[in-house]
């Protein structure tokens, strides 16, 4: 049974729809995850640039995590579709608790440009749960009207 950290269903009681995709932590399966991101953003009436940005950001987050994932790890990507924004939580298992996602890379800077908010979280794992690394990003559906 999964005892790993994830946004629980209760977190979505504010009206968000939740979609969770889990794959092997392999670059070959990231296209499927970004297709889900595009689909959700399109159905949530994101403008075309925001859909493109979200798809690229999800791809970048997943690729970054797959890079540090343990060989048999899963890649889990949870989408919380809220009015006017989508929140994405991506996570993998790592082999060692000191596996680190560098935020000093070109890819990370692109991710910060594409997403409205992005954070990385390293979890050493407790009570038998192995270490994991997660990236959370938020994207608004379009230009904020002022």
């Amino acid at each position: 049974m999964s005892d790993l950290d994830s946004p629980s269903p209760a977190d979505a009681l504010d009206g968000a729809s939740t979609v969770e995709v889990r794959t092997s932590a392999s670059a070959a399966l990231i296209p499927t995850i970004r297709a889900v991101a595009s689909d959700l953003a399109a159905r949530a009436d994101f403008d075309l640039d925001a859909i493109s940005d979200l798809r690229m950001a999800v791809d970048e987050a997943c690729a970054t995590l797959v890079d540090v994932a343990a060989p048999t790890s899963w890649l889990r990507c949870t989408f919380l579709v809220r009015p006017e924004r989508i929140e994405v939580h991506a996570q993998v298992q790592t082999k060692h608790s000191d596996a680190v996602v560098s935020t000093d890379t070109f890819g990370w800077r692109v991710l910060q440009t594409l997403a409205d908010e992005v954070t990385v979280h390293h979890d050493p794992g407790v009570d038998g749960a192995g270490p994991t690394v997660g990236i959370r990003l938020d994207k608004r559906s379009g230009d904020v009207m002022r």
Partner: protein
Amino acid sequence: MNESTQPCADFLETSLTRPRPGAVVLTVRGEIDTLTAPEFTAATDELLTSSGEILVMDLTDVRFLASSGLAVLISAAHRAEDRGTRLRLVVTSRAVRRPLEITGTAGMFDLYPDPESACGGRD
């Protein structure tokens, strides 16, 4: 042609042509991401080591550009400059135009709406 035994393999196709003297065109079709980046990098190397004053990358049929692909493009722009020329990109899709715009890197290239105008030389 990208051949792979993986059932979920990405699709990337590249071809190098010389439509007119002095112009070399690398046509790329499909998705440029972590999986296809090595092939894209190899094709880009071939373009940048070809002889010719006009170097064109036709990205008309590129449906997705990941940051790793963008990094290859930026590196290619620098290498073209080292050769005394500006890299020309044919860009028509949002999938390519948007990343160039949002990262502020569009100015590193000469952008064209189609391969014919991209290959136009100075007479």
